[in-house]
């Protein structure tokens, strides 16, 4: 049983962690969410699940990502059912998931667009690695994959992003 002060210390540590990495966690949840608000809800639901069950985790950060992923997928599934019921509801939230950078707006938009076009299993690995800062071992643990698979999936995704972006640049230059 964790004592009150020990619990408070742990909560302080996680508060600091969330201040630094919370945005990446919401970006991760965004992969399965229809809107930023849904991604935030999923992130909170996932974090609360993680907090209640964190004692069973081997690597707490990897387990947190697993919990957020599960919460986002659950919410995404229930929304798909709702969308089917409410047929033809347009997706209104097309906002960027990144802080705007005026100097590199066009290039960043192209990267974000290419990222959206990646298959979900590759995209999640890229988000976890680049913005979450997870190691391949942690990614493997979070997604229940062997480390080598996580690493090769990442390399394949980056290569594909690079190719897509180069092709788009060539098309852009030809116009």
């Amino acid at each position, binding site marked *: 049983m964790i004592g009150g002060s020990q*619990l*408070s210390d*742990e*909560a302080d540590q*996680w*508060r600091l962690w*969330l*201040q630094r990495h*919370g*945005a*990446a*966690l*919401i*970006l991760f949840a965004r992969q399965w969410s229809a809107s*930023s608000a849904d991604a*935030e809800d999923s*992130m*909170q639901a996932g*974090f*609360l699940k993680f*907090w*209640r069950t964190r004692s069973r985790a081997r690597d707490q950060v990897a387990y947190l990502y697993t919990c957020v992923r599960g919460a986002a997928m659950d919410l995404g599934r229930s929304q798909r059912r709702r969308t089917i019921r409410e047929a033809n509801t347009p997706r209104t939230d097309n906002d*960027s*998931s*990144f*802080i705007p*950078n005026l100097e*590199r707006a066009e*290039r*960043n938009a192209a*990267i*974000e667009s290419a990222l959206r076009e990646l298959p979900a299993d590759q995209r999640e690995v*890229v988000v976890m690695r*680049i*913005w979450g800062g997870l190691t391949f071992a942690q990614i493997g643990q979070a997604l229940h994959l062997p480390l080598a698979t996580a690493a090769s999936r990442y390399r394949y995704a*980056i*290569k594909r*992003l*690079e190719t897509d*972006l*180069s092709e788009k640049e060539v098309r852009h230059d030809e116009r």
Partner: protein
Amino acid sequence: MTNDEQQIERLEREMTSMLPAAMPVGILDHLTDAMTHKITPQRKSDWLLLTAIGSGLAAAFVIVATLTVQSIPDTPAPSISPPMAAILFARADAPWNDIIK
């Protein structure tokens, strides 16, 4: 390092420089509250569910107990008390013929 590898490295650097939209402060406060209070909303709802189940069980116990007590046969009530019987006999022995006439 090949040209391909250089391009990939450049892309990784570019992506790392893209900062995800900040997390709203309200979320951090909400999560901090949930962490520092041992009973989270989920736990509260668990307790509510357990209370409802407990109340249902208690009500079921009371109903079963009431029905059981009612089904135990009572001590047989005396059909006619002795003084009443005496009155009836007395009335049976009355001179009915004279009264009817």
